[in-house]
């Protein structure tokens, strides 16, 4: 592959050598006098300081930490390569991030009500959480779904459920994100078939399917099929979207779950971008032109507790992606170079103890995402260490974003922390560490062989265990958990999924199976089976199947038969 390399702009050294020499001289003097005296009187609180991810944090950062920093090549200007400072020239001065609250519980009716509640309170994009059976490609009435109906998200087993989910919502105007992976193409087909029935043209649809199967094997674990057929399904969506849905993101390459499973910020950054590049390779191997699909690749990152580390992570991600897309993969369209991302505050950081305090944690995390230039944001609710959030908790979470947007002032200028000696040094370091991981992954034969060897899984498990040990040994303070503890009773208002909704769902599925055109249904599934066994793009056949009212479980059964199921390496 011959890479296209556009001319590199002239480097500009931020500090002149003589100035750096003077700073260094002054620093040494300060250490020997002012600092030494101070430490003599008041030692520091700890022998060393580390970030949430366990990275060493120095006492202070100065221009000396940036002496190799060339402003134009490493930072540049927003809206221009390498996009370190942001993907838009005016960022939030032009348009605020999309306030997109991840929501879903119970039946499609329940979640439809929650969507309308959120829209009424000022949210600007939709995000669907599906229940466990849906995520694994099972219908509510299958044995595997026992006890899981609507508990972690909404149950969508049929086109009928999808229609109900978006009933009364203007899907031609709102953008919709769907957290669905292994069966992503099936749920997407239901969304597209619903739009068709409502007369909304596909090119007008805006939204995202998560569809990131690699991180499922690594972290989130909602896989069905083995990696190769799964990747084929993903590339099918790239191809179909590039032809029919110019405003749709067929993937959201996600570090969020990698982080939630225990990874450090650097691991989240490195594994996510390695996965992103793997999707690009698969797309190009299919024969797709990079500039036909790369502009619609989107990303999803976690926003954890350590503010500067998180901001550095987003900035490093943009810079690495832009460089790799332009220089390694030869993308020529600047839109292919842009790393656009959604962020969600860290669910794993929420405590069951003193749950209201989670409101504050979430605010700090959301601030990091905004300072890092996110395109959309979900803020967790304070009761989520217990349950799917209740209405009041969700409203407070949304209000947190509105305060950041309208009261805090951080949206008034682009990349407000840019130029901070600490932040820039951290951005550089995370970038370097990410490349070290890329090398390790390549040495293992690439992303999929590394999954088979359990590499990511073990790295993540190791980090999760180390973090927990730090809490256990009180090296790390978690307010309300290992310090500042109070005796308290349960203070969260519970939200329960109704038995009635479950029974209604069972009846609905029964009725669909009885009343649909059996011949059309069978022939659509047959055609899909043939496509799965061959090389044709599966999306048109999945669309035909859901139009013929095949259920999610039925479509996935055809694919399970054709592709087999994944068994993961067991380790801890």
């Amino acid at each position: 592959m011959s890479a296209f390399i556009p001319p590199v702009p002239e480097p500009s050294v931020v500090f002149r050598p003589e100035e750096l020499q003077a700073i260094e001289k002054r620093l040494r003097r300060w250490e020997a006098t002012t600092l030494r005296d101070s430490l003599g009187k008041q030692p520091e609180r700890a022998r060393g300081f580390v970030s949430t991810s366990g990275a060493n944090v120095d006492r202070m950062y100065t221009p000396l930490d940036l002496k190799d920093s060339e402003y134009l090549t490493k930072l540049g200007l927003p809206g221009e390569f390498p996009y370190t400072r942001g993907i838009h020239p005016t960022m939030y001065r032009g348009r605020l991030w999309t306030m997109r609250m991840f929501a879903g519980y119970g039946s499609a009716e329940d979640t439809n009500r929650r969507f309308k509640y959120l829209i009424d309170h000022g949210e600007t994009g939709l995000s669907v959480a599906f229940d466990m059976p849906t995520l694994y490609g099972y219908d509510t009435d299958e044995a595997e779904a026992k006890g899981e109906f609507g508990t972690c998200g909404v149950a969508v087993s049929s086109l009928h459920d999808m229609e109900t989910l978006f009933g009364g919502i203007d899907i031609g105007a709102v953008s919709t994100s769907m957290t669905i992976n292994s069966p992503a193409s099936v749920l997407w087909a239901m969304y597209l078939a619903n739009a068709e029935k409502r007369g909304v043209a596909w090119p007008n649809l805006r939204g995202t399917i998560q569809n990131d199967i690699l991180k499922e094997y690594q972290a989130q674990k909602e896989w069905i099929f083995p990696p190769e057929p799964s990747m084929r399904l993903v590339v099918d969506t790239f191809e179909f979207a590039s032809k029919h849905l110019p405003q749709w993101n067929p993937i959201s390459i996600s570090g969020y779950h990698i982080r939630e499973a225990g990874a450090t910020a650097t691991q989240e950054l490195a594994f996510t971008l390695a996965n992103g590049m793997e999707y690009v390779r698969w797309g190009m191997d299919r024969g797709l032109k990079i500039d036909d699909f790369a502009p619609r690749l989107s990303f999803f990152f976690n926003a954890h507790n350590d503010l500067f580390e998180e901001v550095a992570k987003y900035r490093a991600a943009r810079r690495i992606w832009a460089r790799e897309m332009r220089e390694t993969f030869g993308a020529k369209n600047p839109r292919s170079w842009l790393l656009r991302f959604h962020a969600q505050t860290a669910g794993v950081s929420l405590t069951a103890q003193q749950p209201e305090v989670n409101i504050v944690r979430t605010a700090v995390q959301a601030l990091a995402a905004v300072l890092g230039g996110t395109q959309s944001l979900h803020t967790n609710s304070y009761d989520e260490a217990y349950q799917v959030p209740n209405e009041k908790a969700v409203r407070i979470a949304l209000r947190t974003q509105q305060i950041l947007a309208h009261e805090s002032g951080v949206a008034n200028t682009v990349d407000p922390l840019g130029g901070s000696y600490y932040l820039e040094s951290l951005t550089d370091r995370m970038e370097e560490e990410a490349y070290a991981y890329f090398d390790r992954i390549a040495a293992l034969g690439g992303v999929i062989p590394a999954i088979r060897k359990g590499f990511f899984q073990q790295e993540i498990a190791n980090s999760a265990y180390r973090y927990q040990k730090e809490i256990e040994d009180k090296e790390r303070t978690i307010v309300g958990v290992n310090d500042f503890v109070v005796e308290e009773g349960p203070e969260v208002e519970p939200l329960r999924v109704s038995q009635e909704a479950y029974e209604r769902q069972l009846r609905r599925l029964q009725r669909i199976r009885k009343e649909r055109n059996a011949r059309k249904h069978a022939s659509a599934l047959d055609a899909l089976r043939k496509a799965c066994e061959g090389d044709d793009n599966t999306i048109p056949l999945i669309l035909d199947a859901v139009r013929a009212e095949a259920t999610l479980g039925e479509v996935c059964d055809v694919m399970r038969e054709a592709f087999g199921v994944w068994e993961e390496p067991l380790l801890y």
Partner: protein
Amino acid sequence: MAKKIRVLIAKPGLDGHDRGAKVVARALRDAGMEVIYTGLRQTPEDIVEAAIQEDVDAIGLSSLSGAHMALLPEVVKLLKKRKAADIFVAAGGIIPDEDVPKLKKAGIKAVFGPGTPLAEIVAFFRSAAE
């Protein structure tokens, strides 16, 4: 030397959240116990079968998806049916407070919520197995 305590750590149902289960598995192993981790998507039948095959003293069930009431008591019931009620069962994960007494009544010996110190879990398995 005393016989090592054998513990099965299992993930019942479809729940894919395995961070907690793995951290607990490792803490028990580091505390000198023999740990068998089942992996994901185990039915109550799978779990009981594995527990009997592996001759464990205890089972730790991890559930974060809200399916705990449907799946956890079933494990205790099946153990009784298989005449293996001497294997004791503990649970952890996202379990609302009001469900804890119900689970205990169903024979789950302990329920560990978010933020439980590992030391407490280790101590529980050790004392319960003795």
